């Protein structure tokens, strides 16, 4: 499988690294020697120096033999142009483009249908906004991912110290929580290590617990776990850039009391013109005076999404120290990820991570519908359809040759969410939610693919 990646920035870098680990043929195109060298040093990929929008370079990269074409430079125009050329040179290639400008994303259909026939437009800003909104929708959760068109959720929570689940073995969970509620523990994070648990594992104090459930049971399960968080209503957004603006717009309704802090006068004018209810404030997010003036201590959530991650982290810490209930910070640099939790910031959103998540789902072989990385990149949760000719159909779950460190979490069968036991038989068209550590992803993919390719 040949993958061409235009742009060796943060997204290009990480995605090429991931794919190289999975033994895919990866070609990276960029104009910067520096960026290419960095990639070539860390992973086994081919690099070509040149503009991604040049047909000559694309031919050189072998676009005619490529299966997937990713355009992830920082320029929307180059990405779109590169996809258009790729489409002309090889119409069958799957084309993915990162596009952020609203002037383009508002007309997605023009880009995906006619013209460039881009398979998927990825807008990291939009993904970030969606993930923040998801966080707000489940107060108390640390991370939320959706499957089966939003019917099933993978939720990460920090259990409170007095939760009655602490100390219990996972196979006892049903008795403790009650039989009606469908819940499967997908992973535990203990001391920074991710564990894909078996029935014998015990939940310990301080564990970060990931579980999968039907969205309809979500609220009841949160109560059972002992998490009673107030719904988020009062929000302060720091940074009125693309993401801040989109977020404020999404919260522009009667339910939320939103404040949007931005330090550029011109931008403030623009924001105030285009927003109805949110209060646009001009000032610096590290200015205690303005934070106090706007009752930072009463905020349910402070969301720092400026383009500068250091500012984001510092403003969140300041807000927290002044009494804000929870904080979300936007980080671009993966290097900061391990820092976030220890220093006391509650949530992280990362546009690049979001972009990578979306890209991954198109790259996965077999009929994998979506996949997300959890806990940084330690594991991936996949959603796959068991097609009629798939080798897994008709087998009992315990007979599936999944590797260790890989768990079938649940099925979606019609409208129902089925929590599998060892004897449950996979039926055609079941949607499976599977969690796996990163190293095992290729093996999982193999199990899921059709018979012809099966060993």
């Amino acid at each position, binding site marked *: 499988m040949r993958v061409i990646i235009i742009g060796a920035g943060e997204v290009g870098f990480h995605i090429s690294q991931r794919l190289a680990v999975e033994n895919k043929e990866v070609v990276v195109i960029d104009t910067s020697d520096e960026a290419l060298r960095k990639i070539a040093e860390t992973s086994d990929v081919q690099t070509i120096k040149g503009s991604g929008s040049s047909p000559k370079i694309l031919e050189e990269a072998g676009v005619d033999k490529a299966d997937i074409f990713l355009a992830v430079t920082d320029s929307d125009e180059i990405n779109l142009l590169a996809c258009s050329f790729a489409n002309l040179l090889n119409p069958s290639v799957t084309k993915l483009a990162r596009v952020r400008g609203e002037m383009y994303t508002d007309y997605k259909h023009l880009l995906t249908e006619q013209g460039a026939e881009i398979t998927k437009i990825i807008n990291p800003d939009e993904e970030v906004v969606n993930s923040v909104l998801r966080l707000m929708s489940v107060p108390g959760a640390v991370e939320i991912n959706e499957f089966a068109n939003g019917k099933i959720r993978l939720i990460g929570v920090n259990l409170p110290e007095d939760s009655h689940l602490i100390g219990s073995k996972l196979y006892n969970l049903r008795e403790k929580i009650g039989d009606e509620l469908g819940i499967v523990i997908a992973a535990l994070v203990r001391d920074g290590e991710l564990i894909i648990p078996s029935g014998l594992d015990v939940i310990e104090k301080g564990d970060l617990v990931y579980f999968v459930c039907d969205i309809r049971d979500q609220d009841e399960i949160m109560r059972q776990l002992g998490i009673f968080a107030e719904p988020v209503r009062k929000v302060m957004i720091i940074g009125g850039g693309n993401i801040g603006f989109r977020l404020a717009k999404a919260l522009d309704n009667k339910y939320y009391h939103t404040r949007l802090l931005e330090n550029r*006068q011109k931008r*403030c*004018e623009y*924001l*105030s*013109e285009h927003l*109805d209810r949110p*209060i*646009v*404030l*001009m*000032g610096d997010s590290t200015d205690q005076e*303005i934070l106090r*003036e*706007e009752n930072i201590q009463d905020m349910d959530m402070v969301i720092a999404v400026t383009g500068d991650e250091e500012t984001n982290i510092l403003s969140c810490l300041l807000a927290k120290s002044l009494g804000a209930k929870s904080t979300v910070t936007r980080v671009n640099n993966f290097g900061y990820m391990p820092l976030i939790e220890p220093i006391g910031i509650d949530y992280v959103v990362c546009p690049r991570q979001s972009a990578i998540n979306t890209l991954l789902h198109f790259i996965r072989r077999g009929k994998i519908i979506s996949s997300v990385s959890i806990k940084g990149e330690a594991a991936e949760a996949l959603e796959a359809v068991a097609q009629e000719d798939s080798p897994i159909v008709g087998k009992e779950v315990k007979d599936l040759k999944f590797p260790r460190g890989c768990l079938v979490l649940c099925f979606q069968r019609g409208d129902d969410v089925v929590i599998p036991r060892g004897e449950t038989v996979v039926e055609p068209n079941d949607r499976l939610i599977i969690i796996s550590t990163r190293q095992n992803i290729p093996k999982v993919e193999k199990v899921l693919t059709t018979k012809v390719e099966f060993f």
Partner: protein
Amino acid sequence: MRWKYVLHIIGALVACIGLTMAFPLGWGLYYGDGTAYPIGLSMGITVIVGGLAFAFFRDPEASKKSSVMTHREGMAIVALGWFAAGVFGGLPFYLGGTFESVVDCVFESLSGFSTTGSSVLVDIESVPRGLLFWRSLTHWLGGMGIIVLSLAILPFLGVGGMQLYKAEVPGPSPDKLKPRIKDTAMTLWKVYLLFSAVETVLLMFGGMDLFDSLCHTFGTMATGGFSTRNTSVASFDSAYIDYVITVFMVIAGVNFSLHYLLLKGRFKVLIKDPEFRVFATMIAIFIAIITVFVYAEGNYDTVSDSIRYTSFQVASILTTTGFATADYEMWPGVTQAILLFCMFVGGCAGSTGGGMKVMRIMLLFKQSYQELFRLIHPRAVSHVKMGKTVVKDDVLSGVWGFFILWLGLLVLAAFVVASTGVDVVTSFAAALACIGNIGPGIGGVGPTDNFAWLPDIAKWVLTFCMVLGRLEIYTVIILFVPEFWRK
């Protein structure tokens, strides 16, 4: 300022007005009530004077396509054109012997053109029908605007059209419905014509004859208020006619651009329009409150009567029409206070209604709230908005300027009227009724009284106020600013 050019255009306007006298002339001939001669003579004088001015002041330099009408010239043409219309429009009354004094003729004529509806006629029914028709027709012409009419029909006005249009249809933010100003004017007149035709037919179903239907339609659609009866619409004593007129008064009080969009099938635009929503809400709330009070007070025996008379009066005053089916001076004090507030507000911007306009009142309130908001959030960056559109600062300061001038001139006019010996309530009410283009006020100029008894000086001042109100202050008052005349 090119005086020749200004007079040239005014000449054309006057000639146009003269031509419209053909309609009352027709009625005069039809009824044979002796008005054909005075109206025909007035028509002749007006057309000839206008035509001569048009021909005599023809300035070959200015008529060239390349010469553009300036903002100042536009204002001068509109303001002076309106006064000229008033004088020539008063000719039929003078020649027809309706009034003896010049001031009464001009007052009645400009009260018509400015859609005020204040009258100095004591016995309306004794006036021959040809003249009554002219009286009501002035409403209809002035309602949508004599300049807008000229723009629609006179091709040579196209060049400076926008200047003229802005001067006559000021509003906080003029809409241009079509790329060309001539087409915009034409469109507005077509909408106006359509509603007028519908109302006329509906009134005829209610038992009015064609003459009465037309005259009352003119009074309604222009939010004027001249009736053909001494007791106004009350003399027909029909709930059906009351409600038809109520509905069309409200229609006339709404921005005609919205009507145009509505007729093109864009119903949502109307519902979502912030000004319309406030206007509609105000009507509903005021009707509800006043109905409760007049019913509780026992002014009317049944609830349905209370609603009928209340809704007519509220619509009539709020849209500044000025028709009457009841004497609201007999109602409880609080209801009069509400109606007084309505007199200040008036119709929507871009409607034929007068007053300060709902849009301006909204902007004033919004901006005041903005000041409070800034006290609470000193660092907030915020804008005054109408719906989703940001209102620019220069528009806001324009509205504040308008508000101050409007109130200031109102007080000044009331002061002059009072100094002629009129009592203070009446002076104030008369000035308000004229500057707001309403018609009846309270006190000595209430719905059952008229303006005939006022001293001449008071009438001149009030006549001037009517034009001030109709052209929304700036266009007229600018003529009195020395800076305007400097070269």
